[in-house]
């Protein structure tokens, strides 16, 4: 039993498309893309994170076209991406050189470089501010001036470069041998946009899939892994947020090309998390000892919940032990991609006339056979 092509319905589809477009314009107002970028930056970031494409202006158009549906905007971004040629692969980004604008640790109070709160909602009264309903652009500009004056008043002069090379908590833990130090691993990463998933998945695949995963799915499965459906209960050793520089080597340059000769293209915002999980480590002599394992999360944008959940799942999936679904690579990685998941779910709306007829026929036959047996 296969699919069959049907004809007809063109007029209905055309009307449906018009109805859908009318829904977009029915309010009689238009929002310009700059306004979407300025007022909804976190939504635009989420679309780029899940769309796996950093292109803020394009993402803002996608958000507008999708009437704010993240699912649809991400689909549009992935479709747009597929129309473009990949011209370069960046030099390896070293997050030690992140320009940090927020950096905290839940493991230690005093850390070298300090706990830098930066912009966060963590300490805000998270209640609806109804006065925003009447806020004007002039109000926003006045507020910006006030805030910048206030921030200048509380500013702390700092030597140049301090926020470009912030020390890591992990460095201390490695220095006392509580966290294992790994040599540089320059294994060429596998790219999941070019290679189908296979299991067990290499580390590069796990991290890429989690980083571009459906935000709420990553958070939900990460939560499950902590809550009892997994064995990863982390402490956030360090969470840092900031921007990383994207650079490329000159065309034709060798693998040992100097960074000084590279081209700087711009910077992208990221959030990085190193979670610490107590683990039983076995040394070369077979002796067991308690140590700390590190779960790693890095996402484009500023979604800290996603970055923390990613770090939990990075650790969880290393076990590749299917006792818990959160440790099952196939369960997590196959289902965490937004376009895959929503694509499959939404295909259920498409005509399944023939397959359903077959199921119905089979059920009716079975019922008839049972009735015949009862009559006999």
């Amino acid at each position, binding site marked *: 039993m296969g699919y069959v092509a049907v004809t007809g319905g063109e007029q209905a589809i055309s009307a449906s498309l018009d109805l859908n477009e009318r829904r977009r314009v029915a309010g009689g107002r238009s929002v310009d893309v700059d306004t979407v970028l300025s007022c909804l930056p976190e939504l635009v970031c989420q679309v780029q994170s899940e769309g796996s494409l950093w292109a803020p202006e394009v993402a803002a158009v996608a958000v507008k076209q999708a009437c704010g549906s993240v699912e649809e905007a991400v689909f549009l971004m992935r479709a747009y991406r597929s129309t473009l040629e990949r011209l370069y692969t960046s030099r390896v980004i070293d997050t030690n050189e992140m320009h940090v604008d927020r950096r905290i640790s839940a493991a230690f109070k005093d850390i070298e470089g300090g706990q830098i709160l930066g912009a966060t909602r963590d300490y805000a009264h998270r209640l609806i501010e109804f006065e925003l309903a009447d806020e004007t652009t002039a109000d926003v500009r006045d507020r910006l001036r006030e805030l910048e004056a206030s921030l200048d008043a509380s500013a702390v002069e700092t030597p140049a470069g*301090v926020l470009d090379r912030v020390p890591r908590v992990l460095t201390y833990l490695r220095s006392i041998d509580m966290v294992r130090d790994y040599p540089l691993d320059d294994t060429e990463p596998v790219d999941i946009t070019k290679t189908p998933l296979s299991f067990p998945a290499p580390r590069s695949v796990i991290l890429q899939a989690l980083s571009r995963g459906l935000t709420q799915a990553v958070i939900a499965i990460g939560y499950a892994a902590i809550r009892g459906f997994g064995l990863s209960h982390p402490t956030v050793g360090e969470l840092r947020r900031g921007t990383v520089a994207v650079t490329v080597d000159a065309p034709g340059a060798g693998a040992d090309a100097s960074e000084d000769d590279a081209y700087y293209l711009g910077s992208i915002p990221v959030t990085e998390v190193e979670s610490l999980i107590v683990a039983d480590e076995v040394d070369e002599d077979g002796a067991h000892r308690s140590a700390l394992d590190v779960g790693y999360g890095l996402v484009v944008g500023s979604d800290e919940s996603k970055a923390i959940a990613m770090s939990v799942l990075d650790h969880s999936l290393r076990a590749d032990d299917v006792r818990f679904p959160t440790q099952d690579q196939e369960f997590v990685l196959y289902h965490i991609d937004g376009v895959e998941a929503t694509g499959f779910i939404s295909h259920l709306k498409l005509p399944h006339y023939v397959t359903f007829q077959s199921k119905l026929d089979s059920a009716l036959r079975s019922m008839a056979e049972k009735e015949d047996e009862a009559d006999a």
Partner: protein
Amino acid sequence: MSRRARTEILVESPAALAHDLARAIEAELPVRVVVPPRQGLVMNQVRETARNSRFYLGEALMSECRVRIGDVEGLGVVLGADDELARSLAVIDAAYAIGPAPAVIDEVERRIEAAGNQLERERARENARIMGSRVSFDEMGGQDMSVQAVVK
């Protein structure tokens, strides 16, 4: 100044700087476009800090242009869709590749250094604002919870 430092200043400064410098170069030297401005992708690869391995974080939209001045080629690359900026960056890159350096480079270099100083001032101001949110535990007595104390 290294190309890395130069291109960062040009990309992070207002685009008018690169356009002005490219115009000044083109007034002195003939520029031929080899690859017209186009959009494409750059895949960002990252080194993670748990296992020191590499992975792909995702792609970014970028613009590229290649030009020639005489026998030397210049490349302009920048994130986003900005054909004009990619072209201006390529012109400046080509001018720097000429040996010996043409006379116009002195002025170009001076303007880039000035723009770099301006960027530094802006960054210093923003950094100071961010550092205003650094937590001070100095007044909180009790147990020393610093990394060094805890791990002793």
